[in-house]
């Protein structure tokens, strides 16, 4: 400030003029990338891992004991919904394995009272979107594509975006993610392992797929 009380930019500020020009260009780009990165489904949706009422571990039951998903999620091949198993399914082993374990207290209580265990839903599409497990599993799309390495999870978390763009990425060309139906629940399967018979089955499924137009039609998922 000089003696007249007016503010003058100091002379050196002229040197910053080019920097201000650069800022005017970069600031919008900065903001757009920040919001795009921060609000993308990969940031917001992935990694959700709610606490469950019972410390049930897929890593033990699937990874170590080699159980098949369908032993518990019995409806995946017939229904849109993949049923969470009733307590009776757990008790088929746990009446005699770890019968006194504190970790299984809620399971035994539920078995005696008939009150279901309240598992917290992990994967949850908005209610206006329609999803169908049977349609995918019966065409050889593996659980792995959408749920990740469940067999290594102590506690289930969401591994994929489950956003509309993510669904469409596959629906535009599902052929690379098709496997033989018998390998759908096999987390270790690798296309290089396919036998000639399985290769033939994969090709049969490719031919039977609905058209891309049908699979990307709004009414397929919003009905």
């Amino acid at each position, binding site marked *: 400030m000089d003696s007249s009380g007016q503010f003058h930019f100091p002379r050196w500020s002229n040197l910053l003029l080019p920097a201000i020009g650069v800022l005017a260009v970069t600031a919008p780009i900065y903001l757009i990338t920040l919001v795009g990165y921060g609000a993308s489904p990969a940031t917001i949706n992935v990694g959700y891992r*709610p606490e469950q009422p019972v410390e049930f571990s897929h890593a033990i039951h699937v990874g170590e004991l080699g159980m098949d998903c369908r032993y518990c999620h019995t409806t995946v091949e017939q229904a849109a919904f993949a049923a*969470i198993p009733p307590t009776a399914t757990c*008790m088929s082993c746990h009446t*005699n394995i770890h019968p006194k374990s504190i970790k299984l207290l809620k399971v035994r209580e539920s078995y005696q009272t008939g009150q279901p265990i309240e598992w917290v839903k992990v994967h949850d599409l908005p*209610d206006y979107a329609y999803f169908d497990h049977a349609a995918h599993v019966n065409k050889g799309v593996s659980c792995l594509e959408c749920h990740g390495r469940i067999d290594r999870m102590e506690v289930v978390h969401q591994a994929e975006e489950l956003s509309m763009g993510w669904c469409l990425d596959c629906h535009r060309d599902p052929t690379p993610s098709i496997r033989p139906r018998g390998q759908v629940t096999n987390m270790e399967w690798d296309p290089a392992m396919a036998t000639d018979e399985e290769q033939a089955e994969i090709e049969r499924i490719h031919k039977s797929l609905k058209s891309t137009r049908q699979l990307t039609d709004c009414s397929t998922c919003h009905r």
Partner: protein
Amino acid sequence: MPQRKPTIPRFAVYAIVISIPLALLPFALIARVRSIHTSQPRLHFFQDMDAQPKLKAQATSARYADGRAMRPTVSGAVARGRLNIDDHFQRGKVFRDGKWTWATTYPDRVPITMQTLERGRERFDIYCATCHGESGNGLGLVHRRAEKLQSSGWIQPSSLHVIDPKTGKLTYGTQLYPHGKMFQIITHGVRTMPGYEAQIPPDDRWAIVAYIRALQLSQNAPIDAVPPDKRPALR
């Protein structure tokens, strides 16, 4: 007065130097959020119609005392087309010579084809192999773990290939253990083995019975039953 060339003061230089990493900080924070797991539900900027009042499968509902949106079936209720009137198919029993006996044949609805056997293999591997082992020898992974844990109440799942000492025949083979009885064991379980009525529909249970028969043949087959060109692989 000679014109001094203006220079940018120290503090402004520092401010610029510090603001660049500061501007990158939000990205680092987001990158961290992306790499960790969180027990918080996702942020919901726009509610749209994400949570509608309609009830979905296995959801909760405050309307019912037990909180279940899916109502359990009233006991004794039978869905259309599900009436158990085919005793052979549903219970494994036939009425012969004036009394009910275990069926020794497969029901007409279950054709014994390669397809049925393949289905049986798949279902056996899902539901039985965890305890009984893939070959049915009673040494599944769950049994091995239970043994290691020394679980007191655990009994070894039966080997489906044991020979009955009295008759010299397979204890669970066709002659001593009719198809119908095997079907009934899968349905309702036996002693410490649970029943699988709720998990496996009847035609799959019959497919499993058929596959167990194939397993029993394969485990006790004489070498002559193998085509000559495959024999070296087995020796």
